[in-house]
């Protein structure tokens, strides 16, 4: 057996992030006095440099390496860039919050880097094993981050819940992978696809495995009926960590769904579409209805996130209609556009919570937004953008996200699904409107001025304006999604 040295070049960004994670670890051990700032700055620098590496190593075509375990394509590169970007912003927003609570230990940034690395591996996996390893790497880092405020009973409880359910889901996923292996004899995505195409796979075993795979994906996306962890973890985790959980991992989960379901299992698309249809409909209904009842805005955003992920699935499940694959690209790119839009909106919404929090005060109830217009009309306007965008009202990116997904659903002929989604959007609009209501129509309870670091103010404003700007000119991001998928398929 001869050993072939793999081509490291396509994986340069992953290797860099892995090395830098070790550097951050060493730095936080040996430079204790300045470790806090050093770890933060190194992490941000790592994310920025990794973005440049990803851009410079972008091939524009599909490259396989590490014995076909690793795939480098435009889809992966775009998603990786979005992951660096949202992680960097999430860390920037969260820094002051962590410092106020004296939990800004350098290890936090180490975990954030490991999480990023895990997501990168997920995004670029061409084989079920690296997919699983990346997923675990991301998840374990996240479990620890949720428990980072270790003296808080609520955070610890949330972390425990997240860990137990997450481990269960990983088990399900792994089990599903083994079933697929049993049915097709390979774990490589293209190999699985080939086996399905040749119809050499054992259908019963395959279907059995598919159910477990879909369950694992749904858990990571946080959709019904695997959503139970979402509200508790969002509420229990420190807001800075909730911000991290609610953003980049959704993109990684999207990548996982795309790689597993579309790269590997496209030939049985109509089977998993059926499952996703139920999941999506249930998520949209439950997410929107449950969000109405919430007083805690983190919980409300958790339920709203469930419904948004349900909406994103609407795009994924509209690809193939009665064997016709004509609409597939359109549908999948609408789902990708939706996922990216959601991440941008989600960053801003949790960023606003962090902005209003300060030492000794957690902004986590809807009432904490009371009278924000009187305290700071600028940030009230930014939050208004976010809320209306999430409700899908135009001139904001959320409208085009909904439009493109609904367009895919209508093209696939699922009118009942479109009507259901629309009716639920109206119900959903109610709780977004309620936030706008307390900001604009009520008088402030808390008159204290808002104090946040200047970089947070600038970034949050840019984030809010981006939601409006992308709503005015959505074309670039839309075609980027379509182009990335087209070049990668």
């Amino acid at each position, binding site marked *: 057996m001869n050993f072939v040295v793999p081509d490291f070049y396509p994986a340069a960004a992953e290797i860099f992030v892995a090395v830098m994670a070790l550097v951050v670890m060493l730095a936080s051990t040996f430079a204790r006095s300045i470790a806090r700032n050093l770890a933060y700055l190194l992490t941000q620098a790592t994310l920025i440099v990794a973005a440049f590496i990803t851009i410079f190593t972008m091939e524009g075509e599909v490259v396989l390496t590490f014995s076909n375990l690793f795939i480098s394509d435009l889809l992966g590169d775009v998603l990786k860039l979005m992951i660096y970007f949202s992680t960097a912003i999430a860390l920037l927003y969260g820094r002051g919050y962590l410092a106020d609570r004296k939990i800004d230990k350098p290890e936090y940034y180490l975990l954030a880097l490991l999480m990023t690395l895990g997501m990168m591996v997920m995004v670029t996996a061409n084989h079920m094993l690296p997919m699983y390893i990346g997923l675990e790497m991301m998840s374990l880092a996240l479990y620890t981050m949720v428990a980072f405020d270790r003296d808080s009973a609520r955070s610890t409880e949330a972390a425990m819940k997240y860990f137990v359910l997450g481990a269960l889901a990983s088990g399900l996923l792994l089990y599903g992978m083994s079933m697929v292996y049993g049915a097709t004899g390979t774990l490589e995505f293209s190999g699985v696809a080939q086996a399905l195409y040749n119809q050499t796979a054992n259908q019963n075993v395959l279907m059995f495995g598919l159910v477990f795979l879909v369950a694992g994906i749904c858990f990571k996306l946080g959709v019904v009926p695997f959503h139970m962890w979402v509200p508790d973890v969002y509420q229990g985790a420190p807001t800075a960590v909730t911000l991290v959980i609610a953003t980049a991992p959704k993109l990684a989960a999207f990548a996982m769904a795309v790689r597993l379901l579309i790269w590997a299992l496209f030939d049985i698309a109509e089977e998993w579409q059926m499952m996703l249809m139920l999941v999506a409909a249930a998520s949209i209904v439950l997410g929107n209805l449950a969000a109405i009842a919430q007083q805690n805005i983190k919980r409300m955003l958790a339920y709203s996130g469930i419904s948004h992920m349900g909406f994103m699935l609407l795009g994924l499940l509209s690809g193939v209609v009665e064997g016709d694959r004509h609409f597939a690209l359109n549908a999948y790119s609408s789902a990708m556009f939706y996922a990216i839009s959601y991440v941008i909106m989600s960053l801003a919404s949790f960023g606003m919570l962090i902005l209003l929090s300060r030492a000794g005060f957690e902004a986590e109830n809807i009432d904490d937004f009371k009278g924000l217009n009187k305290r700071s009309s600028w940030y009230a306007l930014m939050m208004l953008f976010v809320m209306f965008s999430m409700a899908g*009202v135009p001139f904001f990116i959320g409208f085009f996200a909904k439009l493109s997904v609904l367009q895919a659903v209508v093209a696939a002929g699922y009118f009942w699904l479109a009507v259901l989604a629309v009716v639920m959007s109206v119900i959903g609009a109610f709780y977004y409107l309620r936030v706008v209501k307390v900001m604009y129509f009520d008088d402030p309870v808390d008159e204290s001025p808002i104090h946040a670091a200047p970089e947070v103010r600038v970034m949050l404003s840019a984030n809010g304006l981006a939601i409006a700007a992308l709503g005015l000119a959505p074309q670039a991001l839309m075609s980027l999604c379509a182009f990335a998928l087209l070049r990668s398929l």
Partner: protein
Amino acid sequence: MTDIPLLSLAIWVPIIGGLLVLATGSDRNAPLARMLALAVAVAGFVVTIPLYTGFDVGTSAMQFVELQSWVPRFNINYHLGVDGISVLFLLLNAFITIIVVVAGWQVIQNKVAQYMAAFLIMSGLMNGIFSALDAVLFYVFFEASLIPLYLIIGIWGGANRVYAAIKFFLYTLFGSLLMLIALLYLFMQSGGSFSILDWHQLPLPMEPQILIFLAFLVAFGVKVPMWPVHTWLPDAHVEAPTGGSVVLAAIALKLGAYGFLRFSLPIVPDAANELAPLVIALSLIAVVYIGFVALVQADMKKLVAYSSISHMGFVTLGFFMFNSLGVEGALVQMISHGFVSGAMFLCIGVLYDRLHSRQIADYGGVVHTMPKFAAFFMLFTMANSGLPATSGFVGEFMVVLGAVQYNFWIGFVAATTLILGAAYSLWMYKRVVFGKVANPHVAELEDINGREFAFLAVLAVCVLAMGLYPFPFTEVMHASVNELLRHVAVSKL
């Protein structure tokens, strides 16, 4: 002349101006915000004037067309244009915006910049609705205009404002989202075009036509509003500040009716013919039943709100007569209602600013303390009840004639509005203005000041001019209405 993008200016001058007003910030700069808002409103009106003077009345084609790609991925275009049906609404809208800015000059002391900005931005968005020829562009403006109105009702409204604002928003959102599905369906059927003009030519089988028509009916019916989805309007009107009520009555209600002419009739003509009895029945219920409801109101604003619903019932009735008298009459009625209902709400606002009550029972004998005001109020009340020589008469009379042409009994029922309208309007006027001064507060009322006199006088001139010489209005719409009717008569099956 044609090189200047007039429609874009009509849309973006108020919006950009509104953002500038917003940037003046806190109430310390309120005088600056007011002056700037007035300047922007006037500029917004000035840029719409060439739309009328340069309008070619001889053609039914779209004029002042602007076409630019916006989102090529879905073939969404920034496509603007006006025809005889829409052009007048741009003028009306820009005109009403000036009135609203002036009317809020002293009354609004809280968050002045935001108040003025909300109205200006909304004015621009409404111009966008009336000039959009791309369905998504239309939808975007249509939905986005909900945001400023939601804030206006919620921030500067009355005691129960939150309920009214949320109800208003959710009702209209529900309707428009159903329309969105219909638009997406049409997009698929037309092979990937969102152009409204393309859809006018698109053949469609009966069943989808019916479904599309119903989706449009919900969207536009809520906005008009038609019975039985009208209940948001009285709430919204009662709680909204005066300016909000004026814009709501004068412009926002017209959006729904305009939607019928731009979407329902030409895109799904067979369904429109098929379901015309339904719409006619709903319209007649609105005209008669809501007329009676208006009669028993104790709150002046509510009374005018119900009278608006009744008048808008007249408009939808006129559309579904499918004859030029009916449609033109309905359009005239829309413009006239813009002036008259706006003026009615301003009059009530004048009283409310002084006494902080809208209850009819709290007034009586206003004529003794406010004679000038009473004269204006008289004129507008008469116009509201459709007295000849006021603008209210022209539209109603044309619609009744059109209805009689279509079916005598429909015309007969519709004509009862002339009695009902007179009953509720004049009875309210009598109780508020005439009689003894029963209430000590009324005795202390001061008559209207110069600013109030100015905007009421301008509206009075409009109401009379339109009543005495409606030709400049009907002339503009004639060619387009005939083209529309010709189009509706041709089956698309």
